[in-house]
């Protein structure tokens, strides 16, 4: 039923012009501790900017609960609410319409690899952070400022449980930090080889893959939270770091 609704929404959305009052809802970044969500928000934002679509970002503490799918970010375009990266991409605007079918399927393959490896690696970090955060809440009330006691630690605990469940479902829960670092290394190596010396992954114009790579890598590179092991892995690949800087200056310079 939800799938039908999504498909219907996408078709309806495509036939209409992009409205002026589009809002991108996401949580506050300062208190935002969920790295994968942060990466997703950044990817969607990068995609919309690459498409040259007008939108405003709106920060809400309860953005996650407001979202129809329960995940951030989501956009409000007129009467439609579209959440997460793939539905937003399917909403009607595409960066890959002029690409050949082979390129497009290759792009899909890279995107799913990215989601599987970097997505899970970020989740792995959250677990560490959440554990740290629970300890910190006792001493540092800063983390609990969006929710009053005792909701702050109840919600943190719930998030941790959901996150562990996700990792268990993907068979990642038993991996050690070294194994995860190895996976991240493989993923970055593949991306780095694909990017090579090009401006973007598929030539001179950005695609959905570029938006997503930027979202994940930028989040991992700039996070102030203890994501140490992966940051150093990514820094090993010079062209990826430069790619992030390039996208940042081209689309996020304002």
């Amino acid at each position, binding site marked *: 039923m939800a799938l039908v609704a999504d498909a219907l929404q996408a078709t309806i959305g495509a036939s209409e012009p992009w409205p002026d009052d589009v809002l991108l809802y996401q949580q506050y970044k300062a208190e935002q501790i969920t790295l994968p969500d942060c990466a997703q928000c950044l990817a969607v934002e990068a995609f919309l900017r690459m498409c040259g679509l007008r939108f405003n970002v709106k920060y809400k503490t*309860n953005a996650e*609960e407001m979202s129809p799918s329960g995940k951030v970010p989501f956009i409000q375009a007129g009467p439609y*609410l579209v959440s997460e990266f793939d539905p937003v991409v399917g909403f009607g605007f595409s960066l890959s319409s002029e690409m050949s079918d082979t390129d497009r399927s290759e792009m899909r393959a890279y995107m799913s690899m990215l989601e599987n490896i970097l997505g899970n690696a970020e989740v792995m970090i959250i677990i560490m952070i959440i554990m740290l955060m629970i300890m910190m809440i006792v001493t540092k009330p800063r983390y609990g400022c969006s929710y009053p006691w005792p*909701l702050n630690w*109840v919600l943190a605990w719930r998030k941790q449980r959901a996150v562990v469940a996700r990792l268990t479902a993907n068979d990642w829960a038993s991996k050690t930090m070294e194994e995860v670092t190895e996976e991240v290394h493989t993923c970055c190596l593949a991306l780095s080889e694909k990017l090579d010396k090009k401006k973007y992954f598929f030539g001179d114009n950005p695609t959905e893959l570029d938006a997503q790579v930027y979202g994940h890598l930028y989040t991992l590179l700039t996070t102030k939270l203890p994501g140490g092991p992966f940051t150093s892995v990514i820094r090993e690949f010079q062209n990826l770091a430069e790619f992030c800087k390039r996208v940042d200056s081209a689309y996020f310079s304002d």
Partner: protein
Amino acid sequence: MGAVHAKAPPSGTLRDSQPTGIKTTSTFAPKKDDNVIKLDIDKIPVRVQRIVVDGLTRTKDDIVIREIRPLLNAKTFDELVHLSYNAKVKMERLGVFKNVVIAIDVSKDNREYGYEVLFEVQEFRRIDGGIHTSISNNDGSLDFQLKMPNILGRGERFSLDYTVGTKRTHGYSAYFKKPLNNNPDIFFGSTAYQFHGEYPWSGYKQTDRGIAFDLTFPTILGSHNIQWEGVWRDLRALTRDTSFSVREQAGHSLKSSLKHTFTIDTRDDPILPTVGMLWRTSQVQFIFRKHFSVLDIETFFNFFYYNFPSYLGQIFQMSLAGGLMRTLDPVASVSISDRFFLGGPLTLRGFNLKGCGPHSHDNALGAESYWLAAAHLYSPLPFRPGKGRFGELFKTHFFVNAGNLGNLDFSGCSKSFLCRVCVKMRWSYGCGIVLCMGRIARLELNYVVPMRVQKGDKANPGLQFGIGIQFL
């Protein structure tokens, strides 16, 4: 000799009357025709020598002693019977005994005017349970209950409940009640609960998890209840079509509130009263970051009058209700689940359930104040079929309802404020049949004509069916 003389008749009469137990009254004189000895029990002197309470296992002695101590002061036989009956009523109210039977006998050691009183009590079982149905707001639910009466021996009660409703509502709760000072009217209660409910008229669902502590005590005027409640509420949009103004409020919130409820209830029946009145006023203070943030006052008045020529059996009812909510803290906002809603087949008839007031894409948003008034005239069924039997459960009624709902601006003068309250009034009238389903619910089938409807209201002219306990 006096002792022998006094012994036979009273004990004889008491043995006769014993099985009825409760029916003991002051007119205890033996019948004149079959008894030669005339006795005036008001004058028989009595000295209570022993009081035996049989059947106590878990109950602590002190609460029983407290209730039966006055018996020792009985001077005459009449007084003794009276005091024993009072003690029995008090003991039954403790919530400890299933039943209490009194037996009065002469004392075994043959002292002059010596009597002894025996209370045979039966305690409640240690664990009791049950399944029953309850009905509220056009929604039925099945309740499973496990209770432990008298858990600590002084009338304390602990119960566990699980509720499943027809509209995907479900909840658990644990409740502990302790009478204070061994008085069953003054008690302290504490509860922990989780409840999930769906509110389709506003397009949201909510899970509440909370704890509450309350104190109930009676005064000369009525009963008071003071409650502190802390609840974690998780509000979510019900469907994809939920209006954005409701969706915006989704998320977790913590509500801490102090509530005072004052109730006077003199009605003879909660579902279809014939005489009496119910007055309930509650005020809630929401506490947000150590300050009082929202004040919410709601009052409810129901009056029944039964003084027409009684053979016609007509009852007149007047009802008034109103609520007002005001934010005291500029940062605080009132969640949709705390707001007032108006409309429904048992309140403002002629409108859909919560169908009045501001809406956004078919979702009722509620408002911060309302008033509601109703007048009813009940009569028995025409030609009185089933008179004295099931026909008494049915009544026909004519009614007029009026009400309004809106957000108030306190900055303006009071005159324009009153104008606004009245100018957008809704009202309707109609007639129908009321059925009283035991003490569970009230069923109404009405034909309603909404006379004044405001923009955005969902009126429901014609036949309307309602079921519930609360009505106006």
